[in-house]
């Protein structure tokens, strides 16, 4: 009997030992697997993360660039805030953000540069069963988002839409609940058209929305808007177009109502040609005047964030240069206006600071 027991114990011991060996083996495999992964990525692979706004264009770049240069570009559209965090923590080779870095973020990042690489517009979407394309002005939009205008048939909305019979319908304000460069662009615009907005709310990727409901991502906002009669929300124009949502013609300072499109974006891009020391350009709500007659007032550059000292510099610099030049031609079908030559030049000059 004892012999039997001992035998059993031995086999149990053997099983335990086997298990340990198996665990060790799995651990070894996963470790070597990981190192194999990193080895592969160092030869022709770069990774980035950040804003959703440029994501449709970056998706095209990924395909075209890999086909042309056989360098694989990974991009994770996790939002501007996430992109800033990722480049700060060095978990990616490049970040992307619609909101330029704040001085705090620059110092936290330690040796980062940013340059504008994508140019597009934010559309203000609405859901009303009306055939007409509705007009909207900045001050009225700000008061809607402040919760001061609650009804569609408010006198101020009727006044800018003469001849349209707008029914008595509650307005549902929809905003991005996650940190978002689109929110940054949108609130920067409201800042310029409403003193009340500027003092009470301000601009940023996340703000203290006075009213409304939040939804996650452009898809979340567009989803709530499309399912809710009377809703108003905002998303990048490419998104609104792809999903066949209605959007306002916005009044610019030249007094024209403009739809977000390539013409409007190009005109707006003329509004700021003076780079800040950190390559910022602000083109929301361009001034009035003949030059800006066609400008759409809620446009923005989106930025790529790079570390000046990067192991992948030899792969990153050619990719970003390609994106600034060749890559721009893939923009217009997605309503990304190619960036003007002086922005390309500035970008190339900034890239010179990046080294391995």
């Amino acid at each position, binding site marked *: 009997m004892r012999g039997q027991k001992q035998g059993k*114990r031995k086999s149990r*011991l053997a099983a335990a030992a086997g298990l340990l060996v198996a665990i060790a083996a799995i651990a070894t495999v996963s470790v070597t697997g990981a190192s194999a992964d990193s080895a592969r990525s160092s030869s022709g692979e770069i990774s980035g993360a950040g804003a959703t706004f440029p994501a449709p264009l970056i998706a095209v770049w990924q395909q075209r660039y890999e086909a042309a240069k056989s360098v694989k570009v990974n991009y994770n559209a996790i939002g501007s*805030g996430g992109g800033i965090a990722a480049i700060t923590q060095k978990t990616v080779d490049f970040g992307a953000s619609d909101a330029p870095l704040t001085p705090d973020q620059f110092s936290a990042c330690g040796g980062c540069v940013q340059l504008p690489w994508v140019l597009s517009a934010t559309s203000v979407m609405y859901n009303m069963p009306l055939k007409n394309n509705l007009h909207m002005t900045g001050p009225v939009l700000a008061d809607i988002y402040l919760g001061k205008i609650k009804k569609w048939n408010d006198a101020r909305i009727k006044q800018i839409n003469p001849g349209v019979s707008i029914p008595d319908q509650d307005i549902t304000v*929809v905003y991005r609940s996650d940190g978002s460069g689109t929110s940054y662009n949108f609130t920067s615009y409201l800042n310029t058209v409403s003193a009340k907005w500027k003092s009470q709310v301000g601009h940023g990727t996340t703000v203290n929305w006075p*009213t*409304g409901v939040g939804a996650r991502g452009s898809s979340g906002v567009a989803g*709530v808007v499309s399912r809710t009669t009377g809703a108003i929300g905002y998303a990048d124009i490419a998104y609104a177009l792809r999903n066949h949502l209605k959007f306002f013609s916005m009044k610019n300072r030249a007094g024209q109502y403009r739809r977000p499109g390539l013409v409007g974006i190009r005109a707006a891009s003329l509004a700021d040609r003076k780079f800040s020391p950190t390559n910022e350009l602000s083109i929301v709500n361009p001034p009035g005047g003949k030059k800006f007659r066609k400008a759409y007032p809620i446009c923005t550059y989106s930025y790529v964030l790079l570390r000046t000292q990067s192991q992948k510099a030899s792969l990153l610099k050619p990719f970003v240069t390609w994106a600034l030049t060749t890559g721009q031609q893939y923009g217009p079908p997605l309503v990304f206006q190619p960036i003007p030559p002086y922005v390309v030049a500035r970008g190339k000059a900034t890239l010179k600071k990046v080294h391995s």
Partner: protein
Amino acid sequence: MAVAPRSATGPAAFKRRGRFRPGDTVLYVITLAAALSGLVLLVLIARELLTAAWPAMDRFGLDFLTTKAWDPNKKLFGAASFIFGTAVTSIGALLLATPISIAIALFLTELAPRGVRGAVGVLVDMLAAIPSVVLGLWGILVLGPFIVNTLAPALHGTLGFLPIFSTKPSVGSNVFAAILILTIMIVPIISSICRELFLGVPQELKDGALALGATRWEVARGVTFPYARAGIAAALILGLGRAVGEAIAVSQVIGNNVAIHWSLFDAGDTLASRIAGQYIGADTKLQINSLVYLAVILLVFSLVVNVLAQIIVRRVAGRHSAA
């Protein structure tokens, strides 16, 4: 064969047999490590959270709990509206789920024909297997519009004098949607535990009551419920814990608004939902610190709920065995 006395535990229990048995030592070490790892993990998580939340805790102190604002631009953060939202959604879900779950369990153990029991039981349990993000999507696409078009007009029309139904929603994202989603999530948890509990009630007791002429309901009320009291309380608290911690599905349907509204048809937010929604896109260190502060509150909340469950179970069980 010599058997170690039951009271002796630890390595001494093995040594007493006079012979060194490596297998037993290995077993002891492995099980001890497993037992300790849970504790160590909890301590490490708590420490990490406190470290990451410290700048916000230092800056806002306990005022954080009573501050309603969440304003990155003014560098002002507070948890009041999220604590309120968490309490309202989880308690609301518990109030709805309790009668439903107990009814399901009672039906399946006492009333349903044999053939039905298995099938319905499996289906109810399968509700628990729906990933929360899928349930959230269903909440957005089906439940939200249903609330706006059907449920809310009816409730507002008949019970509109109650503060909780005092507004009419224009959009499917609201606190009520979150409550319903959470209810669906916790019903299978509570009902499956209750089912096991009711099955554990000795048949003699039930037979005795029936023999005395008690109706089915009287048996349930007089025998089954008192017998399973402690377990039901624990099941409810488990359900509550699940509802308090759920992030994704809630953040999909609740409307993510920083506000304290009495009407369930307005948008709100919960602790877990806010953390899930904003951590990745957070701009400033202070915002991240504040989000982690929310996580600390959530952790304390959950620990309190769990300890409460233990206390209730012990107390009710003690009273029960004494009776």
